[in-house]
C-alpha cells in the first residue's frame, strides 16, 4: 500500500514569496488500486507525483510505500512522464531495458523481458527503431514499457496521454487498463480529463488550487466494467457516468469561480 499522510509542500517563489503548492494531502493507494488525481492547472498534481516519486522532498508529512518511507527516487516506483524522457541515443529496446541494466540483470534475461514488454504494449516490431522515429503515442507506450520493466510496486503517470489525439488516447487507455488488470499494479495517474479519470480510476481525487488540496474523493468502479467489457462507449454514455461527470464538473467550476472572485 502507498500511504500519503498530511503531505504539504511549500516552494520559494522567485520573488521571495512562499507558494503553498500542497496542503496536508492524505490518501492511500491499496494494492491493485488505480488512483486518479484530477484538477485544474496549478493545483499541485505534479507536485504530489514528484513527491511520491522521490524527486521532491515534502515540507511536512510523510509518504510510505509498503511501510517503507519514501526518501528519494527508486526502481520500486515507475514513472511515466508527460513528455516522454526517452534517451535518443538508445534504441527502443535499449530504452526499455534501461532499468534492468541499472539493476545488473544479464543480457539474455534483459532481452527476454524487453521482448515481452514490447509485446505487451504492442510494439514488438519496433525494438530496433530509434525513439525519434516513433509517433507520440508509440513513444508514450515505450515510456510505459520502460517503467514496467523493473517490475515496480506502483506506476506514477503525469498526464501521460495529455498530448495525444482523442483516438490514440482511447487506445492508450485500453492498453493501460489491460496492462493494469494483468499486472495488478498500483497506479497513480494525473489527468485534466474528467472522463478519463472516471473511466480509469478506482478512486478519483478532485483537487483545488491555492493551496493544493484534495477537496473530494470518489470511489468509482467503471473501470471494472471496462476491464470486463473492453468497450468504453456504453460506459461513458451510461446515466451513472454522466451524472458523476456533471457533479465533478460542477465542483471544478465552483473552485474556478471562487478563484476568479478572489
Amino acid at each position, binding site marked *: 500500500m502507498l500511504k500519503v499522510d498530511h503531505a504539504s509542500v511549500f516552494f520559494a517563489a522567485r520573488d521571495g514569496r512562499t507558494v503553498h503548492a500542497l496542503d496536508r494531502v492524505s490518501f492511500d493507494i491499496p494494492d491493485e488500486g488505480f488512483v486518479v488525481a484530477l484538477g485544474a492547472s496549478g493545483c499541485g498534481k505534479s507536485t504530489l507525483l514528484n513527491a511520491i516519486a522521490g524527486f521532491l522532498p515534502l515540507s511536512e508529512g510523510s509518504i510510505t510505500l509498503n511501510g517503507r518511507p519514501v526518501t528519494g527516487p527508486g526502481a520500486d516506483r515507475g514513472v511515466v512522464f508527460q513528455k516522454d524522457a*526517452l534517451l535518443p*541515443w538508445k534504441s527502443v529496446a535499449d530504452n526499455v531495458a534501461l532499468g534492468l541494466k541499472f539493476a545488473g540483470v544479464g543480457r539474455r534475461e534483459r532481452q527476454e523481458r524487453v521482448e515481452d514488454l514490447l509485446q505487451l504494449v504492442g510494439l514488438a516490431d519496433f525494438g530496433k527503431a530509434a525513439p525519434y522515429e516513433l509517433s507520440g503515442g508509440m513513444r508514450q507506450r515505450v515510456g510505459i514499457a520502460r517503467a514496467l520493466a523493473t517490475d515496480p510496486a506502483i506506476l506514477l503517470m503525469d498526464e501521460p496521454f495529455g498530448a495525444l489525439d482523442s483516438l490514440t488516447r482511447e487506445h492508450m487507455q485500453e492498453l493501460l487498463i489491460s496492462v493494469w488488470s494483468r499486472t495488478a499494479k498500483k497506479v497513480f495517474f494525473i489527468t485534466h480529463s474528467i472522463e478519463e479519470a472516471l473511466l480509469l480510476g478506482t478512486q478519483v481525487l478532485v483537487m483545488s488550487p491555492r493551496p493544493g488540496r484534495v477537496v473530494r474523493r470518489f470511489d468509482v468502479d467503471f473501470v471494472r466494467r471496462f476491464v470486463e467489457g473492453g468497450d468504453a462507449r456504453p460506459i461513458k454514455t451510461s446515466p451513472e457516468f454522466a451524472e458523476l461527470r456533471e457533479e465533478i464538473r460542477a465542483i471544478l467550476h465552483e473552485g474556478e469561480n471562487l478563484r476568479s472572485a478572489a
Partner: protein
Amino acid sequence: MSEIIHAGELVGDNRAAPVAKVRLVKMADFGVGDKPTLAISLVTAVVILAAWWLVSRLGVVPHLFLPRPDEVLRQVGNIYRDGYAGASLADHVSASLFRIVVAALIAIAAGIPLGLLMGLNRWAKGVLDTPIEFYWPLPPLSYLPLMIIWLGIGETSKITLLVLAMFAPICLSAQAGVRSLPLERVNAARALGASRLQLFFHIVMPSALPEILTGIRIALGVGWGTLVAAELIASTRGIGYMIMSASQFLATDVVFVGIGIIAICAFAFGALVRAAEALLVPWKGKL
C-alpha cells in the same frame, strides 16, 4: 439516385501503393539542414583558382607578391623532392602533425573529465573557474615567451602552449553539455534505479557528447592557429617554420605551399570530427 454524397463514402484509391516506385520523403529542414552543398563549394573553388590565375597572369599584381597557380604547384614538386630549409617536406608536416595530435589528445583527456566535473560539482567549478577564466581569454602568443623561458625551445614548450590553447574550449563545452542536460532525463533514470555512477555514464556523458564534439572542433581550429604561430618563433621543423624561412627569402610560392598544406590538414581534421559526430551522435538535435 440521391444527389447527396453518401456520408462515409470511400474517397480515392485505398489500395496500397506499389512499393517499388514510391517517392521517399522527409520533414523539411530549417535553414541549410543536410541539403548538399559540395557541388557549390567545388564550383566556388574553381572560380577562385581561375581568378587567381587570371590576376597573376595579367600582371595586375607584381609577380613577387602573387605567384601563378602552376608555379606554386611546381614548387610543391620541388619541395617534395629536395625538401626545404634543412628538412624534407615529410619532416615538416609530421613535426607539425605530431605536435597538434599529441596536444589534442592531452587536451581532450584533461578537458572532458575536468569540464564534466565542473558541470557536476560546485567545488570543482569554484576552484577551477579561477585559473581557467583568467588564462583562456589570453592570446597564446602572449604567454609563449614564458613557455620558452620555463620549458625551453624544444617540443615541450610548443606542446604545452597548444594544450593550453585547446584545453579551454573542450573543458567549457563539456561543462555546457552537463548544464544543458534536461532534469527530466535525470529524474527518469533515477526512477529506474540508476546509481550515481550509472547516471554519469549512461545519462550525463552521452547527453554532453554533442557539445563536447563541437568543443573539440573549435579546439582544433584554435590549435592550428596557435601551432603555426609557435613554429614561427621557435622551431627548426614544422610547416610554420617552413613558411617563416620562405618569407625571409621572399619565396612567396613556398609560403603559398605552406598555407595550402595547413589548409588541407585543418580540413582533414575537421572532416574527422564531423565523421565522429555522424557516427557517435546521429541523434543530435532530435527529440
